[in-house]
């Protein structure tokens, strides 16, 4: 069982560079999410998707973009990297819309912008 897979695990970017964080899940989940985790701040929602072709902003979307062309994949794009985007990024998915449904998380991508 692969679950939620994120690549890369680590990355160092220079200011102004762009990159895509990849996320794929093999559980046929409709709902997918991107979070960032900063020390002492918990997890903040960046973007989410309720199904292929449908995405929406979370709490901290500025500087990021997403797409959802398939059920399995939900890539996160950073167009112009800034030091404030140094963080650990987690992708997650959940099975259905029920409020009691737990989410499954990937292992994270540690991004440093210098």
């Amino acid at each position, binding site marked *: 069982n692969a679950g939620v897979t994120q690549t890369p695990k680590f990355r160092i970017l220079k200011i102004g560079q762009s990159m895509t964080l990849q996320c794929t899940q093999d559980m046929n989940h409709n709902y997918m999410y991107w979070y960032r985790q900063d020390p*002492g701040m918990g*997890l903040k*929602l960046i973007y989410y998707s309720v199904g292929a072709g449908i995405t929406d902003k979370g709490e901290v979307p500025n500087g990021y973009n997403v797409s959802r062309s398939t059920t399995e994949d939900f890539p996160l794009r950073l167009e112009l990297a800034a030091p404030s985007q140094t963080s650990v990024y987690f992708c997650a998915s959940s099975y259905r*819309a029920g409020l009691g449904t737990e989410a499954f998380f990937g*292992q994270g991508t540690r991004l440093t912008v210098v």
Partner: protein
Amino acid sequence: AQSVAQPEDQVNVAEGNPLTVKCTYSVSGNPYLFWYVQYPNRGLQFLLKYITGDNLVKGSYGFEAEFNKSQTSFHLKKPSALVSDSALYFCAVRTGGLTGGGNKLTFGTGTQLKVEL
């Protein structure tokens, strides 16, 4: 707005002793509450959840949590701590709904649990 508070940044406990990690929440309507654990350099793993029914919820690895509506709390507990329980613990509450809300989870800031011999 929904929110979750974890008042302790760190909890230290001796192995074999009971442990409690505190969580309080603020939400309009019925709360759907979760506990997740994060080991170093790993993603979050689901531990347990409260939806409705019995206020004492049992989860993975011997953990349980007690839902208290009057105190708006959902504290995580374990009768006998293990060194291997040392990790970062997050409380979360479900926000949004079946349409439009995207089934979002709002997380607390996390509590580092350290279990020592």
